[in-house]
C-alpha cells in the first residue's frame, strides 16, 4: 500500500488538528508551523503537507514571510528528490522569486540557487550537484539548519542507483556520492547493504533492477459486454 501524500508518520497531534481545521488559514498558527519546520530540520523528519500549509499562510500574508524558514522548507524538499515536493513548494512562492531580475532580493537569490541544485538532482547530475554545493558559501548557509543534509542526499541517490543498477563502477559511484576511501566503503556496505568487489560495487537484485520481461494480457470483464447482451434481448432476431 502506498502512503497518501498528506500523511506523515511523525506528525504531532496538534499539527494534525490545525491542518484539518480552518486554523490552517489563521496567521497566528504561523509560529506553530515555523517551530514544526525547525523541529523537522533538527530531527531529520519530513512533513511536506504541513510545510505547504505554512507556505500558503505566507502566500496569503506576505508580511509574515520568514526567508530562513522558506529556504529551510525548500532544502528539506530537496532531500526527498525526485518527488514533486520542491516544485509544489515553489508554486506557492510569490511569482517574482523565479524571475531573472538582477534587482532580485536575497530570498529570490537563495531560491534560484536552490533551484539549480534541484535541477541537477532531477537530471541525475550528481557530480555537478556536489560541485555546485561546494562552489558558493551561500549553499553552506542555506543547508546549515538541516541536520545531516549531505547524508540524506547520499541516501536518496543510493535509492535511485539501486533502482537502476545491478552493479556499478566504483569510481563513478564515488563521484556521485562524493565520498571516497573507507568512508565510501562503510557507507556502501553498512547504509546500503551492497558489496564491493574490486573496482565494482554489486547491488543485490530487487524488484526494480531485475529487468524481467513480461507479457500483459488483456483483461476482459463481463461488464464490457453488457450493452451487447442487452441488445440481444431487446431485438430478438
Amino acid at each position, binding site marked *: *500500500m*502506498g502512503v*497518501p*501524500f*498528506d500523511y506523515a508518520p511523525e506528525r504531532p497531534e496538534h499539527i494534525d488538528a490545525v491542518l484539518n481545521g480552518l486554523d490552517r488559514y489563521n496567521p497566528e498558527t504561523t509560529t506553530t508551523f515555523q517551530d514544526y519546520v525547525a523541529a523537522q530540520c533538527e530531527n531529520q523528519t519530513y512533513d*511536506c*503537507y504541513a510545510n*505547504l*500549509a505554512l507556505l*500558503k499562510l505566507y*502566500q*496569503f*500574508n506576505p508580511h509574515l514571510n520568514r526567508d530562513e524558514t522558506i529556504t529551510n522548507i525548500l532544502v528539506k524538499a530537496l532531500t526527498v528528490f*525526485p*518527488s*514533486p515536493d520542491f*516544485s*509544489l513548494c*515553489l*508554486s*506557492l512562492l*510569490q*511569482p*517574482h522569486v*523565479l*524571475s531573472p*531580475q538582477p534587482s532580485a532580493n536575497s530570498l529570490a537569490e537563495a531560491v534560484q540557487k536552490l*533551484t539549480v541544485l*534541484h*535541477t541537477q538532482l*532531477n*537530471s*541525475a*547530475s550528481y*557530480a555537478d550537484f556536489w560541485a555546485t554545493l561546494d562552489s558558493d558559501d551561500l549553499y553552506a548557509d542555506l543547508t546549515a539548519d538541516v541536520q545531516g543534509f549531505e547524508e540524506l542526499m547520499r541516501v536518496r541517490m543510493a535509492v*535511485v542507483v539501486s*533502482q*537502476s*543498477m*545491478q*552493479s556499478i*563502477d566504483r569510481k563513478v559511484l564515488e563521484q556521485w556520492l562524493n565520498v571516497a576511501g573507507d568512508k565510501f566503503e562503510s557507507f556502501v556496505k553498512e547504509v546500503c547493504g551492497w558489496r564491493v568487489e574490486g573496482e*565494482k560495487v554489486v547491488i543485490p537484485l530487487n524488484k*526494480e*533492477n*531485475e529487468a*524481467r*520481461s*513480461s*507479457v*500483459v*494480457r*488483456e483483461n476482459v470483464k463481463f461488464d*464490457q*459486454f*453488457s450493452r451487447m447482451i*442487452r*441488445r440481444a*434481448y*431487446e431485438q430478438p432476431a
Partner: protein
Amino acid sequence: MSVRNVPTYQQGAPERAPADDSDVEEEALANDYREQVQYEGGYDDELERVPSSGPQDLQAQLAAAAQPLEYQATLETKIASYDSYCNLFHFILNSDGPVDIDVPSYFWAWEVIDEFIYQFNSFCSHRQRVAFKADNEEEIMVLRENPNTWGCYSVLNVLYSLIQRSQISEQLAARKRGEDGALYAGEYGNRPLYQMLGYFSIVGLLRVHCLLGDFSLAIKTLDDIELNKKAMFARVMAAHFSTYYYVGFSYMMMHRYADAIRMFTHILIYISRTKNFQKNAQYDAITKKADQMYALVAICVAFHPTRLDDTIHTALREKYGEQFAKMQRGGPEALPVFEELFRSACPRFISPTPPDFDNPHLNVDPVEHHLAIFMEEVKNNMYSPMVRSYLKLYTTMDLTKLAGFLEVDPETLRGWLLVNKQRSRQVRHTEGGLLDGEVVNSSDLDYAMEGDLIHVSEAKVGRRLVDWYLRNLARTY
C-alpha cells in the same frame, strides 16, 4: 439515481436492476442535460415562476448572482458586484435561522458559485496586469483604495462557511458509509438551497486552490466526493467537466501523469458521447475546455507514453497532431511546443495578495511562474523519448555504444538513464482518497545496468481485441 427517465426500449425487457446500469444512468444524465439546455433559454422566466416565499428583491439578487458580468464591465461594476455577493452570502449565512427560499435547480447553485469564482479570478488577474503595466493611474488609485475587495480570505471564507453551514462534508461522508446523509444534515443542510450551495462550494474550493497553485490541497478538498457518474456534480454539465479538469490538472502538477490522463480521458470520452445535446451557447465553452484538456492529455502522454482510448487518440491527432508528434520525439525542439500548449491549457493562475504597485516589475504574471516551474520538469525529461526509442530495439546494449549513437558522452547518458528510470516510477491511484496511491512502474520499457551493460526488458501488451470487436459489432448490429 432511481428509475426516473426510464428509456422506452426497456418496457418489454426482462427484469433487471436499472440502478446499477451505467447505460440507464447515462440516459438519465442526458435527459438532465436536455432540461438544462432548455433551462438556459428561459432563465428569468423560471425564476419569476417560482412562488416567492422570500422578499422579492432577494429573488432578484439570486438571479443576478448567477448572471455573468458584461465583458467590458468597469472596475466600479466589478467592485459593486463583489459587494452584492458579500451581501447575498451574508444574508444566506447569517440570518436568524435558515433562509426560507426555493431555488430553481442544481444549475442555479452551480452558476452562483461558478460566477463568484470567475469574477474573483478575473478581478485578480486584472489587478495584477494593471500593476505590471503601471500606466493607468486612475485604476491604480481605485485598486489601492480597495485592497480587500475580492480578497482571498473573504472568498475562501464564503466557500468554507457554505460548506460548514450545510454540513455537506458530514452528509457526504455518511453517504459514503452507506448511511442516510439527511441524518447528518442539520437544520440548514436539509434545505436544498444550503445543500447545493455547500456541495458546489467544495468543487469551487478545488478550483480556487488550483488557481492559487496549491495542487495537493486542491485534490485533498475532494476527499468526501466520490468521482463517478452518480455524484451530484455530474448532474450539471459544466460542474462535471470543470471538476475533472481541475483534478486532472492538479495531478499533472504533482507529476502523477497516469492519474491525470485517467481524469482527462474519462471526461473527454463523456463529452464526446453527449455532444449531441450540446447545441447551444454552452457548447462553445465546452468545446474550448475540451480542447484545453486534449492539449493536457498530449503533454501528459509525452511524459508518460501510454495507450489511449481510440476515440481520444483520434481526436488528439486531429487537433494537435503535429505538436503531439514533436513532444513525443522530445529534445530541445519540443520545448516551445510544451510551452505553447501549457499556456493555452492552464487555468488563469492568480496571486492572492494585492500587487506591489510601487514596483511594477515585481508583479510577474503568476501564469509565467507556474510555467517556469513546469518547464523545469520538461527540461529534465526531454531526452527520455530518445533514450527509450533506442532501447526498445535491443535486449542488451553497451552504454558507450549507445552514447555513440546519441552523440553524447557516456556519463551524460548514464544520467539520462537514471532520469528516465526515476520518471517511470510514478505514484498512481489505486483506492481510497484521491491523494492516495502507490508507486508503480508506469512504463512498458524497463532496464537495469550491470556496469556499462544495459539489460533491457519490455512488458509486451498482448493485442487488445475486445474494444475493436465491440465497436465493430455495435456498428453492424
